[in-house]
């Protein structure tokens, strides 16, 4: 459905936001994982017609996005990262405004759509309240409501769960999951669980380059037998970090559990564990190029 070819973008200050990124995104939920500053938002904005790449092309469902922005906008639903609202406008008014702008000309139909979306995002009860008074979670749900106006075929949500409490995050992800399966949904995030929980396909972006792409199950499988775990004390940590490739460390009951990557048993009482997506993620951040072929094959 969405086909990104050799996309590159370098900003005026020399930052290379995208380096020759190519990616095929089929219908369904697609997770785009990457740390802050990886180029995720640049990629999202480029797909959403808000930015011009230096080179490369984007096609969606027969639309040449870079030269047919208007056509794409007609099928796009976009929830940008860190978006604002008119603080003194009510949720319903604002959503209605967006609906008008999305081409919903018929007033009766539009009101029905607005009502349905507000109900679906559980905002109907507060529809008359000013957006400025909304909590972060309500605001994100409002954001997805506006993105879903007009039955978009391509939905882009850029880091929607950052800063949400677990309950709100679940609520939000559930909303995403309800969107029909024929729609391309790109979920950009730096939270691994978002992808694990939700996305049949995913990619990892770091330093502007595509590091991994594929189905989560498949990319995890590639690390099978290479992830080792050990519980260490604080003073030992520095030594392990020097001698092994430590992917992650986390505290557990006051002690530190580390995951290291090694193609063979690193010894020292490390025990092998089944890799998860987090291991893939941290591994990808350290190793460029892995899984690129998979991405192209998809």
């Amino acid at each position, binding site marked *: 459905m969405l086909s990104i070819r050799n996309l590159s973008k370098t900003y005026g200050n020399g930052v290379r936001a995208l380096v020759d990124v190519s990616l095929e995104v089929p219908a369904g939920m697609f997770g785009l994982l990457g740390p802050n500053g990886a180029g995720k938002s640049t990629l999202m904005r480029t797909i959403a017609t808000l930015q011009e790449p230096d080179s490369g092309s984007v096609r969606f469902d027969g639309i040449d996005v870079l030269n047919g922005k208007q056509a794409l906008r007609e099928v796009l639903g976009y929830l940008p990262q860190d978006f604002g609202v008119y603080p003194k406008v009510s949720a319903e008014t604002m959503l209605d405004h967006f609906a008008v702008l999305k081409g919903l000309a018929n007033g009766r139909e539009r009101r029905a759509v607005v009502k349905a979306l507000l109900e679906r*995002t559980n905002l109907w*009860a507060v529809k008359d309240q000013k957006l400025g008074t909304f*909590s972060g979670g309500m605001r994100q749900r409002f954001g997805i409501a506006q993105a879903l106006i007009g*039955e978009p075929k391509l939905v882009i949500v850029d880091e929607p769960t950052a800063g949400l409490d677990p309950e709100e995050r679940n609520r939000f992800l559930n909303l995403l999951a309800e969107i029909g399966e024929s729609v391309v949904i790109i979920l950009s995030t730096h939270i691994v669980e978002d992808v694990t929980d939700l996305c049949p396909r995913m990619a990892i972006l770091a330093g502007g380059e595509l590091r991994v792409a594929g189905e989560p199950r498949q990319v995890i499988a590639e690390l099978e037998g290479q992830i080792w775990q050990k519980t260490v004390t604080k003073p030992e940590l520095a030594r392990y970090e020097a001698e092994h490739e430590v992917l992650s460390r986390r505290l557990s009951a006051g002690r530190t559990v580390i995951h290291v990557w090694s193609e063979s048993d690193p010894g020292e009482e490390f025990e092998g564990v089944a890799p998860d997506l987090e291991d893939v993620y941290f591994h990808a951040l350290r190793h460029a190029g892995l899984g690129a072929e998979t991405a192209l094959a998809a």
Partner: protein
Amino acid sequence: MSRNFREIFRFELRQTFRSPLFWGTGLFFATMTFGAVTSDSVTIGGGIGNVQRNAPFVILQLLSVMSIIGVFVTTAFVAGAALRDFERGTHELFFSKPMAKLDYLGGRFAGSLVASTGVMVLCSLGILVGSFMPWLEAERIGPTLAGPYLFALAVLVIPNLLLTGALFFALASASRSWLVTYVGVVVFFAGFFVSTLMLGDVEHQTLGALLDPFGATAIDLATRYWTVADKNTALPPLSGLLLWNRLIWTGVGLAVLSLSFATFRTTAGAPTYGALGRLLRRRKKVAVEQGSAAEDAPALVVPPASRDFSSRRNRSLFFHALRRETVGVWKSIPFVVMIAFGMFNLAGSSVVRFERFGTKVYPVTALMLDNIQGSFVFLLVIIVTLYAGELVWRERALKVAEVTDALPGPSWVPLLSKIGALWIVILTFLTVGGLTAIGIQLSQGYTHVEPALYAEGLAIEGVRFLLAAVLAVFFQVLCNQKFVGYLAMILFLISQTVLASLNFDHRLYRFADTPSMTYSDMNGYGHYLQGFAWFNLYWACFALLLLVGAVLFWVRGSESVWRLRVREAKARFRGPWRALAAAGLVGWVAIGAWIFWNTNVLNAYVPTDEQEHRQADYEKQYRKKYKDLIAPRIVDAEANVDIFPDERRVEIAGRYVLKNKSNRPESEIHLQLDPRVKVRRLSLDPKWRTHFDQRLGYSIYELPVPLAPGATMELSFQLMVEERGFVNQNSDTSLVYNGTFFNNTQYFPVLAYDESRQLQDRNDRRKYGLPAAIRMAKLEDVNARRNNYVSGDADWIGFRATVSTSADQIALAPGYLQREWKVGNRRYFRYEMDRPILGFYSFLSARWAVKKDVWHPGKENVAIEIYYDPAHAYNVDRMIDSAKKSLDYFTVAFSPYQHRQVRILEFPRYASFAQSFPNTIPYSESIGFIADLRDPDDIDYVFYVTAHEVAHQWWAHQVIGGAVQGGTMLSESLAQYSALMVMQKEYGKEKMRRFLKYELDQYLQGRGGELIEEMPLMRVENQPYIHYRKGSLVFYALQDAIGEETVDRALSRYIAQVAYQEPPYTYTPDLMKILREVTPPAQQGLLTDLFEEITLYDMRATSATWTKRPDGKYLVKLTVDAKKIRANGRGVESPLALDDSIDVGVFGEKTATKEGKKQETVLYLAKHRLTQPTSMFELVVDGKPIEAGIDPLNKLVDRTSDDNRMKVTAAGT
């Protein structure tokens, strides 16, 4: 000072010095003062005038005004200091620290105050740097002194900032609301303006000076009568009213501040204020989740909805966006505040703006439109600039842009809806202005509401703002940075004034700059409309190009790289945009060509500097050679003048009879004509022409046979003047559709060097290498008295004219109507004068209503006729009454009236004077016809001006002075005296006192502004403040001293002696001689003081007590100081021995007179001969004394006239 305080203070300062608001406004203000110092086209609170550009007085004025304007900015600093932590939610971080509340508040306030002061320091720097600019003339720059800056900062600026800072800090922290704070600012200013206006006249100045919170009135009062020398060197003393004012208001500031600190609440949220608070506050409710989590919500299917992306749909999308954008601005606080401020300003300035001598003018719509232009629409500059930025950046500022930019819908929708919203906002603003003005009219009982005229006037006023809105949006789009966009707009605004000051006058390259439009009730907008329409159409086409440019470069998304923006613009440039751009370009070029044809081909385009250059050349080339030329003089003039009002054309066929009045043959005729006048035929043979200067309109003809002494010859001419198309500037106001008015010096051949064509302005003269001042010929110059001061080529002439005009108008010229007839659609009038008149006559044509009356029917039978605009009938009867009473007085006191008719003719308000021609008095619609004389307490200046003009039939048209010093005293001062006497007879002495107080004030201010030399009255050199203002005072004092009848008798003798005299013309010593003869010896010194010298007095009552005597009478003990001062022409003073008869008076309670007006009872009033600096009087009066003093009726020239009397207190208390 605690450490906490210092830290808070330091932090506050740091915040400010990093804020763009501080630097933006600071630099903007500094640019304003810089501009004011370095150019005449930027004025702040009145121009600099002719004092040095960095004179202490100028520094004081500029910084004083800036500290007042600056309140709008400094409030942002102090209110920010009070509100920031609550807005950002950081207040809990601060108030949970171990810190005294006072440290926090003191530090915040002090920091913001220093920041505010910083802005003013930048203003000072603007002046300082400006004074070093190389293009300024060296003599206009004084020494650079620290004193004036420090004085201004310490005495005016800082106390003002402290006061307003304290007030609005208090208001902000009490209300926790920006809206309330700025509404407070507006209310404060409204109160300030209204009180300044109410207390602005001479009768309330002490109270006004104390109540002005900014101290500006006190400064004005202290410097009111300063001469240029004073302004260049001195600072007002920090004493008296100024000191009290500063102490009072600084005290108020500190009190408010302490109160505010004491009641400061450290908790968030606004106070309740009961119902008022509920009104002011917006309902703030935090959205609370209702219902349960999303999982429980039914997974609703969104119903299908049809979508429409057609172009028709785009149009409705546009209107949808337009409505949202417009409502957004309407509801925004700054807009509401500016509208409110504009309304207050308009109302305040309309209360007193049109007063003359304290008498109101009917608020006719034309004046209200002027007022809207002057005190209301300037806010639109700010609104357009500000909201162009706000609207263009709205989505991005709120971070909604990424959502909206990714929505479908064409890019022109947001752009055009923003421009459209800006337009609606402008129209809203103007409409509010119009409605306010109508409200003001109604509130003053003026019910002739003209909505259509308002619509027209406001539209005319508004067009340039509509165009500027497009430009401002274009800048914002193109610059793609809000503050750069603002900067571009500010630079554009500055460039407009800079271009003007550099004499780049042509409106073909001055964006949206249209000729200024004057509406006259008589002539409407007249011929101005044509040029206005074309220039605006021209710039509208250009705006269309800007609009297309803005559409092409409108940023959608986050791309700001130029290469990519250009690529995108190219992609967008197709279809309708190409067509629009082409239409705009073609229209722009075509209309531009049409304008050029009109302004530069049909008419001569003469930029200001070229005009000045011509005037300078005229003087350089001809003054020396020909000023004293003896040439044949005009003794008779006859003219056929055909006025075509609709075509703005006049055809003149004239015939002069010239006579050689000298005693040798004359062969040269010097003929001067305005270069715009076309000569169709001239009886002088072109072959005789020895000099021809087309540019300056000066030709010399050499007669083949010289004209023998005493011989006469004819000079006949056919001329045509036509206003074709439209001009760039200085549109002619003589030939108009309704209200044509011109005199012979404009279009007829002038046969002598004409001093009135010379450059007058001192600085312009210097620029062209001319002596700074043109002085009048000395009194002793007998030669100069060969000419009277009105015309240089004629003495007394015979005059006849046939004037024709279109069928619906009346045409007028001096003389009596002999015959009136019609040919086709033309009306003809034949006027003949039955006795010689001065060589100064006028022609008028308009659609008038006429009111006729007769003075002394059956006896002299003088016809009185008022020709007036039908809408201006208000004071016609007053004029008739005044004319009759003037004739009553003058014919008895002076001499018979030489004509059989007095005609007063209204002309459009392009000029605002009345002027007396023989039996003909053109009178501007703006000065008497619309005076509001309904309040009988007001000074009836219509009566007075009419009497003055009628008096000119004696003083100018019977007695005319030679072209030497004192010439204008013989016409203007004597006309003033005559009018005063008529007015005194009609209205009584009490009114005269009030009237003369204005005259005194004007005289003293006038001498303060004197640039060259103040002359004694009898040597006045055409200085209006002397021959009018001082003339009134002098002659009133004279008749007070020697009696009205004595003066009248002297004047009557004078007329008998010199009326209709041939050259050499009379001069002031002739009159003085008679006055000396009729004045008793004791008063001879007074004549010297009044006429021959500049004499000032300083009178002061120092103590006054009463004791009641056993017989029931009161003994009043009064001590007074009296000083007499002589000033020279430069204002340097020396003391003079006192030996004068001066009024001493005691006054009792006010009682009602017959007419129900309150008047004080005069218990004692008599002249006493004073010789000592201090005198004591013991006076016995019948009633209870209230006030007593010396010169209590202000008959003497005294700069502090209100300390002459004081309250009388009981002795021993």
